[in-house]
């Protein structure tokens, strides 16, 4: 299994290189941080709990946006540039590839979300208005711990949404389909599922009793529920029951794992027919190469790092169609 781990990190490194080399990603990251910090400053910075209350809704929208921006081309780009075909010839398992892509992108997205929100929280002690020194105040505005909980929940939420986006990127392998599907996921996650629940409630399809578990199935509602239960709770002084917390955690976990499983299952399972046509127009050996890759899949782990590691060294920007050169090349 050590070999598979090496494969994994090879893919992770490739993904991180892509992210670092693509100016659009850097710009997106800067934009995200700027918006969050500006919202934090605009929220008057009187305490951690008010800050959580203020950032909750923006984070619910901005984090999926960030995940879509960072994830929707993750696998689709490899497919479009035919790199996926090349990768398939390597002795790497699809699950390793998908997981590597996810971990690579997640490392970037999660670090960004975590650090941006953490810094926003530091604004409170740094720039917040001082409490009236003559008058005793108390912890009603919340200790830092409540804020840290929110930051961690937001990071988890980012991971879940990114996994969903990676899955979509895997399933929708053509350029226009990918962006459409990604936007669809964004709308579904930020408003769609919740609107569906509202509709279900108003038509009596579900009662308020079933709401708790249905809410857990919507990632942003699960995130919101956890934030209210574990972070903002400290000022509401009302507690969501443990079952709701557990349901929300399970809901998020299901989305995370489910998305990655879906991606792993679909990435190479159904090769698009056009790929075969392209390969056939090349040399006559293309067919054989493709078949050998399939048959070798999982059987040649000992040599797995060979081609990947080798291609790492000649990482350059020769052109996206060259298997080695595409390694870590910036996405357009």
């Amino acid at each position, binding site marked *: 299994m050590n070999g598979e781990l090496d494969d994994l*990190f090879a893919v992770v490194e490739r993904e991180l290189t892509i992210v670092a080399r693509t100016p659009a990603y850097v710009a997106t990251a800067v934009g995200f941080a700027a918006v969050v910090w500006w919202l934090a400053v605009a929220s008057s910075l*009187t305490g951690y709990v008010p800050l959580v209350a203020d950032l909750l809704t923006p984070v619910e929208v901005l984090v999926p946006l960030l995940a879509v921006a960072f994830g929707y081309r993750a696998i689709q780009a490899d497919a479009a540039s035919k790199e996926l075909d090349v990768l398939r010839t390597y002795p790497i398992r699809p699950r390793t590839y998908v997981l590597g892509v996810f971990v690579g992108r997640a490392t970037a997205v999660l670090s960004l979300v975590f650090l941006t929100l953490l810094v926003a929280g530091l604004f409170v002690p740094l720039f917040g208005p001082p409490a009236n020194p003559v008058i005793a105040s108390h912890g009603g505005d919340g200790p830092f711990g409540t804020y840290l*909980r929110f930051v961690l929940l937001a990071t988890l939420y980012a991971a879940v949404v990114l996994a969903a986006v990676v899955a979509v990127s895997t399933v929708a392998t053509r350029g226009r389909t990918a962006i459409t599907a990604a936007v669809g996921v964004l709308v579904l996650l930020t408003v769609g599922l919740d609107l569906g629940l509202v509709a279900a409630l108003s038509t009596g399809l579900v009662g308020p009793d079933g709401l708790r578990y249905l809410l857990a199935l919507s990632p942003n509602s699960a995130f919101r529920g956890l934030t209210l239960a574990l972070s903002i709770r400290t000022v509401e002084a009302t507690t969501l029951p443990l079952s709701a917390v557990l349901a929300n955690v399970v809901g998020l976990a299901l989305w995370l794992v489910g998305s990655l499983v879906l991606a792993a299952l679909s990435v190479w399972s159904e090769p698009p027919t056009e790929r075969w046509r392209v390969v056939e127009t090349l040399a006559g050996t293309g067919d054989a190469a493709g078949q050998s890759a399939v048959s070798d899949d999982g059987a040649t782990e000992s040599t797995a790092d060979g081609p990947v590691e080798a291609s790492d060294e000649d990482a350059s920007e020769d052109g996206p169609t060259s298997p080695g050169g595409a390694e870590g090349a910036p996405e357009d």
Partner: protein
Amino acid sequence: MYVRYLVTALVALLLVTSGVFVVDVDPGEGPSVVDFDDTIGMTDLTQAEQRVVRERGIAVPRAEVFYSRYRYVVGHQGLSSLVTELDRDGHERQFGVPLSIYVTDYADAELETGEDGYLRVTGGDTDWVAVENAVFVVDSDARHPGGSAVVPFRDRGAAESFTDRLGGTVVDWEGLSAHPFERSELSADAAERRAADRNAWADAAAADARSLTERPVSVVVGDDAPTLAAAIDQAPANTTVVLPAGEYRDENITVSKPLTIRGAGVNETWVVGDGNGSVLRAFDARVAVTDLSIRGIGQQQARPDIDLDTDAWDAQVLRAYGYAASGIEFDDAGGSYVADVYVDTPTNGVTVRYSDDVVVEDVRVDGETPWRDGFMSTITIHSRMLVQDSTFVGGRDGVYMHLGDGTVVRDNRFADLRFGVHEMYTSETLVANNTATRTRTGVVVMTLPEDNVIASNHVTDSDIGIDVAGRASYVVGNTVVGNEQGLDVGSDRSLFARNTVVGNEVGIRASTLIPTNVVTANDIVGNDRYVSTSLGPVRIWTDDGAGNYWGGAPGVDSDRDGFIDRAFQPTGAVDRYAASSPDAHVLATSPAVQLLRSQEGSLPGLRSSGVVDEAPRVGPVRPDAVAAALNATDSRPTTGVMG
């Protein structure tokens, strides 16, 4: 290989910080009691009563409340304010729920009531106890100056030994919460009822005082007596001394029997002092002075050396104001009357000390200009007075009250003074239908009194229109136009409703740290700034789903209920310009600004200084008053948008 470290580091960071989920971050676990002097005070006592408490060493049970959505600790002096405040509509919206409440524990203290019935601690110690662990004695004989004392103990045994001596019943926290304390009702109806009661008293007092003009004539100065002093000396009680037209320069005219002194009319009969001290002094009940003019009053203002038969806390106030030279001075002269009198004074005009039911009407007092050179046109000390239909120009204050509970000031005109009406340590007054112009403050209420009604006054061209401190007071139906600052909301648990605030530099200033006022149904139009706030958290100025009319507030009323569908933030970064810039409307409807606005509205008690109206009105509450006020300010550059 760096990615392995990177990923490992991120995972490790997330795992380690996740420890925060098992750490207790709940602040509700019991913040410890803080120094009572450091809390935000909410009290059952007026400032006058607080001075009595300090002076006589009276024990007043206290409470400290830690709220979930309010960052400061609230300290209650007396527990009825605690119970009534927790029960108030809109309280939870602003403060959240109490995380913990502590009250004074008298279990280890020796308690006595003195002859005055006030509770005192004569030995032992007091401590704090959480309300859920406390029992309370209600309806006992123990009192404090603010009313019946609710006395908490940590155990029932101590409470019962208290009731054995001083009576009362023992209840737990739940029982206390259900106890029927007198709750001030902050509605326009309640204000109207109070105004009606006080007007009725004033009507009766005026009618009674006017009857003094029907006394038979006994002495005519010039015919029956050579001087006014001789006439007073000569006239039997309950008769009238007539002063025909002319100037009378008697010194030290003192009336010590019930007598009416009647001139031939303002500017016809002049009583002229020698420029030293007061001109006319009355030391018996039911003295009337009518139809004459007074001048030649002395310059003496404060009398620091005067020997008073009191060591009370307010002796200083009396020396500073109450014994200044005056046109007419009443002392222990209840039911006296001044009407159709003109006073030209460098100091006080009419002084009323320890004389209830004195009526001053149709009087004009001209004081000094600038006001620093003058003093009080009328002043009441420890007396309930009625001042009506009079004119006060120049001087320091038109009507100054010191412990003048129940005083009514109505239908007067004030101009070029420091304060039109100035209430100190005075509760349960009615100040209505007065007009004030070119003052520092039209009507000002200081020193935390209670239950004052300031209604239908009209203040223009002043620094501050109306400035009310204290609690459970009513500021209703006033018009403040063209002042630097229209209304100053400096009170707590008070009602500010149906006021017309037009063309001021700042419409309303919110200056109290504790947001307990009801501000609703006011029309705020054409001011340079709607609202300024200094201290305190965000205040919600909406009562029972009804807010104020903010001229130019953008938005639509899709359900036609008379209220704009979105909240309005008169102090907000964009909304504050709503009246002056149509572009602000466009920006205000952007999702970004709406997001910011929703931020301000949530957890208001934890935010710093601002005002949110959750249900701004589509149209003004008193359109005619607004239109008239706008007409009056036509000469000023207005920024308001009507309708």
